[in-house]
């Protein structure tokens, strides 16, 4: 590489590197510093974390919620992705577009739609009452159920897309070959198609898990005070108790969990998708 070319490359990279360095990496170091240095290196905030029953409860709840949502997205989303991958290409483009539409609408608005639907006078309660299933309005808003339902709906498009991308790469001839060799349709699916699609499906579930860990808006609006998650607790520590170092430790826990899961993602994700 010539010298002139190097200068050119450096100039092209400069704005993005400055932006990400100054407003992404540097703030992350700030969090690291605030949670681990006071002013010398100390683990005292982690002792506080261990001795805080609230933090333990919220961390456990967040982890469990994200895991449940990821598993639900996997189980419910896989058949949708499968149907999509095996349908006629004309229809496929249309449905793919439809499934991805909600993805481009903000989580705030999508959570709001559930507030409207699940409220006491909402559509769901109206329908349940109209069909004679319930006598009066059922409390759905501000429950864990509402949070699960909305998060599955919000994250499932990502699951479907990741899964679908892995499925269309599978050569349909392989399934046909299994059938020719005498396998039942079910067996051909279970022994050929499913194992080949598992990498993409697992990658999708891990992305849902990671994104689920950081959810803030949906638990706050649909879960009420009794269902706050890690992100809400961080917000609370910053704005209500003004305990920034504790908020930083919580953020560090969230960051560490995200990084571990990203490592897991790299292990299972089909190789090409990472660089493509």
């Amino acid at each position, binding site marked *: 590489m010539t010298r002139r070319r190097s200068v050119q490359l450096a100039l092209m990279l400069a704005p993005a590197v400055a932006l990400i360095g100054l407003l992404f990496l540097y703030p992350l170091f700030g969090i690291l510093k605030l949670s681990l240095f006071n002013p010398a290196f100390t683990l005292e905030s982690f002792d506080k974390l261990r001795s805080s029953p609230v933090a333990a409860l919220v961390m456990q709840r967040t982890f469990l919620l994200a895991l449940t949502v990821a598993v639900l997205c996997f189980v419910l989303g896989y058949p949708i992705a499968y149907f999509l991958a095996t349908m006629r290409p004309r229809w496929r483009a249309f449905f793919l577009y*439809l499934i991805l539409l909600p993805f481009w*609408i903000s989580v705030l608005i999508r959570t709001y739609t559930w507030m409207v639907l699940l409220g006491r006078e909402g559509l769901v309660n109206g329908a349940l009452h109209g069909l004679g299933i319930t006598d009066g309005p059922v409390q759905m808003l501000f429950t864990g159920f509402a949070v699960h339902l909305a998060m599955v709906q919000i994250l499932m498009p990502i699951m479907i897309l990741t899964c679908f991308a892995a499925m269309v790469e599978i050569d349909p001839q392989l399934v046909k070959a299994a059938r020719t060799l005498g396998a039942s*349709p079910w067996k051909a699916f279970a022994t050929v198609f499913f194992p080949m699609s598992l990498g993409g499906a697992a990658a999708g579930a891990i992305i849902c898990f990671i994104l689920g860990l950081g959810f803030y808006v949906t638990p706050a609006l649909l879960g009420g005070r009794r269902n706050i998650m890690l992100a809400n607790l961080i*917000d609370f520590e910053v704005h209500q108790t003004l305990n920034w170092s504790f908020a930083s430790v919580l953020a560090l826990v969230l960051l560490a969990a995200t990084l571990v899961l990203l490592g897991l993602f790299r292990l299972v994700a089909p190789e090409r998708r990472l660089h493509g």
Partner: protein
Amino acid sequence: MTRVLLGIYFAIGVAFLVLPLALVVPISLTDSQFLQFPPQRLSLRWYREFFVDESWVRATLLSLQVGLGATAVALVAGTLAAVAIVRGSFPGRRLLHALLVAPLILPSVIVALGLFILFLRWKWVDSVPALIFAHAVGAIPYVVLIVSASLRSFDTTLERAARVLGAGPLRAFLNVTVPYLGPSLFAASLLAFFASFDELIVTLFVSGGLQTLPVRIWTDLTLRLDPTVAAAASMLIVVSVAGMSIAEYFRQRNVRRYGH
């Protein structure tokens, strides 16, 4: 038989994903104080309410301003970086690419907290330019992802042909590669714009007294449920769907023109 059952499940699944959004629009057309479905009497009352209320209008204008600013910053910085990463060969390209798309996957509350601490120290809270740059961080991954994917599938023979025909490297890039990238750049700008326009968490932490549209909706939702939010939400849904449909149209046109 299995296929039919799967098809029914598929239809229910797609309805579950899309229908809640579609239902908000008719609900927003109600005349009453409360949200109901189906609305008893159709009216644009809450849309009028939105445009009459100065705080809603101001929030919308601020969101537009910040969104356009963040899009411009992210588009310039992201495109230049994507070209350098795809075309150049230097150590750490992969790492850099990963760093530039990292804001997409990292929980925004972490970035929000980090920026909050930083902005307090720099006295950047309550500043529109600072908010624009903070939003650009969240928008840049979309630009980098789309532009670098598009550049990778670009047939560089076309650019070499221009060079052979006597164009300089910059001229070849501007006359051949940029027109090819056009629709991708457009799609990237749309995504970057919506990333900023919809951003809530970072804004809640660093904006101080500034109210963007999502913050305005948020404060309304945490205090009371007024159908004005339904009107605002419906307009956002319609605008997002329209924007994405346009981007999809241009993407497909490019696929037809260049064959991939």
